[in-house]
């Protein structure tokens, strides 16, 4: 059992269901039973940085794919960008760049589709408090076959794009030092074009669905909502950019912290704080400082931060999104879902554009350069900005690795959102099913990839404990796999 300050009580929820990986929530109560602090415990695979030490740098892009069952391509590409720098390559051939963008859009599309349709849509279609046994993708397919099937097909399409480039749906190999290992054949290109019009249309439907849900549920607007700083990548014109660009950080009111920042200097802009109760670090913007420098990343951050989206349908959706907050930033935590679908639409449109680009089937795939001692690769992964940093010795072996994964960047924000929701729904020591459900919905909005190693799609057993300061269990509630709630005491 964890030791806490003497006059606080502890509620533990373990694990959070339907979040990728495994997490646990502890609510620290003060004497008046107000939630003083919320701690989302996350099992993060930090062993990686140690493990990779002494290994040849060439292995890194393949190794990092094992970090996550959902976003292996994101890790692969971030590491590959770092390795490009190690081999002295600052710019790939146009074809290699476009293939990397294409596979990245495929990855983001499939990840976003998975998150909304499989993990989150049940909450919105059936209500946060509805029967758990039915509140899942199977229930969606039964009651809303149209929506459910589109979700399944969108995800499949994203995987198809990935497979065409990497040779496999997951854990393939596409990027090599300074480029890509395989050209896209014209047959493969044509095969991907067959369904693209549907994919774009269904993505549009998904945007409309999320927009409607958010607009028609004013009670959702303040739910878990936080006014925060945001961090994300933008293109040279300030447009939404997921693969390569400068970093932009802005305050909640939209004022600049930095813009077009070269991510190779990330070490001066972002620091990571270690807290004794968590394996996961707490990054903050150096310019703002440790206390208030935390920020949010991911779809909400990106759609807020960018000045435009370079594809027309997604841009129109972005304009509506921003109009919702009267042109200011949208801070609603549940609007993450809306922003996520806007990005999915952008990916679908961008995939179509790339497939019609003559460069995409080019065969000039690799460039070489002169070795350097380190590489820093950053991309916008589905869940937010992802940093991979490697230092190598003169023999090409990794000396030091540092990763900041998107979920880590959202760490503080998730804790704050949990605290806000817990204060709203916690009634004494009583752990109601309503509280459980609402905490889950709050965490899930961020689409955390908790272990970046496990991939748990189904329902997980959920346990909540109210523990007094002296360690006595005052109350314990378990939610088993079938959603049956039992009171254990």
């Amino acid at each position, binding site marked *: 059992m964890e030791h806490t300050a003497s006059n606080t009580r502890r509620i533990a929820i373990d694990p959070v269901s339907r979040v990728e990986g495994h997490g646990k929530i502890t609510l620290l109560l003060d004497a008046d039973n107000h939630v003083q602090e919320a701690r989302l415990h996350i099992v993060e695979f930090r062993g990686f940085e140690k493990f990779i030490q002494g290994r*040849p740098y*060439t*292995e890194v892009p*393949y190794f990092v794919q094992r970090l996550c069952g959902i976003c292996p391509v994101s890790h692969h590409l971030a590491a590959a960008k770092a390795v490009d720098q190690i081999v002295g390559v600052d710019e790939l051939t146009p074809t290699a760049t476009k293939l990397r963008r294409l596979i990245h859009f495929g990855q983001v599309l499939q990840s976003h589709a998975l998150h909304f349709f499989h993990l989150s849509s049940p909450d919105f279609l059936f209500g946060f408090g509805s029967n758990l046994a039915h509140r899942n993708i199977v229930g969606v397919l039964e009651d809303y076959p149209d929506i459910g099937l589109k979700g399944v097909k969108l995800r499949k399409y994203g995987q198809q794009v990935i497979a065409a480039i990497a040779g496999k749906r997951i854990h393939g190999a596409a990027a*090599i030092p300074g480029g890509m*290992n*395989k050209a896209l054949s014209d047959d493969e290109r044509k095969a991907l074009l067959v369904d693209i019009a549907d994919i774009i249309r269904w993505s549009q439907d998904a945007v409309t669905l999320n927009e409607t849900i958010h607009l028609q549920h004013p009670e959702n607007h303040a739910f878990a909502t936080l006014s925060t700083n945001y961090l994300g990548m933008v293109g040279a014109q300030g447009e939404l950019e997921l693969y390569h660009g400068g970093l932009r950080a802005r305050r909640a009111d939209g004022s600049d912290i930095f813009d077009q920042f070269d991510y190779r200097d990330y070490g001066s802009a972002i620091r990571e704080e270690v807290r004794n109760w968590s394996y996961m670090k707490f990054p903050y913007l150096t310019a703002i400082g440790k206390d208030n420098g935390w920020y949010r990343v991911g779809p909400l951050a990106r759609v807020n931060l960018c000045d435009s989206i370079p594809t027309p349908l997604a841009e129109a959706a972005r304009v509506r999104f921003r109009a919702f907050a009267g042109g200011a930033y949208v801070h609603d935590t549940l609007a993450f879902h809306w922003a996520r679908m806007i990005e999915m639409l952008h990916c679908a449109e961008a995939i179509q554009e790339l497939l019609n680009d003559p460069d995409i089937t080019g065969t000039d795939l690799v460039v070489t350069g002169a070795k350097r001692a380190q590489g820093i690769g950053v991309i916008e992964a589905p869940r937010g900005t992802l940093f991979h940093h490697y230092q190598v010795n003169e023999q090409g072996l990794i000396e030091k690795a540092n990763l900041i994964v998107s979920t880590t960047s959202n760490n503080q924000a998730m804790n704050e959102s949990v605290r806000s929701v817990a204060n709203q729904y916690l009634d004494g020591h009583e752990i109601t099913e309503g509280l459980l459900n609402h905490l889950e919905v709050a965490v899930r909005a961020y689409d955390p990839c908790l272990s970046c190693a496990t991939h748990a799609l189904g329902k997980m057993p959920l346990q909540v404990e109210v523990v007094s300061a002296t360690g006595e269990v005052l109350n314990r509630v378990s939610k088993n796999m079938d959603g049956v709630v039992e009171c254990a005491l």
Partner: protein
Amino acid sequence: MSNTLFIDGQEIPFAPGQTIMDASLEAGIYIPHLCHKPGLTPHGSCKLCTVEVDGRSVSACTLPAAAGMKVDNNTPALQEVRKTLVQMLFVEGNHLCPTCSKTGDCTLQALGYHFGMLDGHFPPFYPRREVDASHPDLVLDRDRCVLCELCVRASREQDGKNVFAISGRGASAHIIVNTSSGKLGDSDLTLDDAAAHICPVGAILPKNHGCEVPFGRRTFDLHSVAESDVAHVGLQKTEHHDE
């Protein structure tokens, strides 16, 4: 008496001095093997070529063929033994196929698939062995060495050098480099040596290369390990012989 023997009942010829392995390879019959390569002195260490002759287990790569010999090769019991041997090789080293640029081109991995191996079965040893990256063009990753001595023999017999040796016994056996520093970078091994390319696993690999041969076009995507004389595509895209 004619110079023939029987492999699983099939009569095949052999030349004087040939081993069971030599004869069967020539006849196009696959006897699993890892430490054997035609043209190099047989070594008989991996035991994957274990066959039964008159009920006795013998290594096909070292036992001379004899007239009228009756050899059991492709039996369920022997395949099970071989699968177990492959599993043991996997757990003795650190064989993380998905992170290894030899994946798809690795004989050990191909044997695993060939025997329907789904896991290591035994608890992994996770040995800590030294990576030697001192050579400008090659990396020696002892984590993956299966002690087949193919590199040792290729260096001596084909390259006319003496770059590698096995040192230690049993669990502490490991591949060493015959230089006073023990470093590959101080040896006279060059990228075009046979020893630089013969490793059946990813223990000796060219430096600065990722998975350059795309999935679907790697050696064992296109070929079965049971085909005789599979020409490995290596890591270089340009070396792909099927394109």
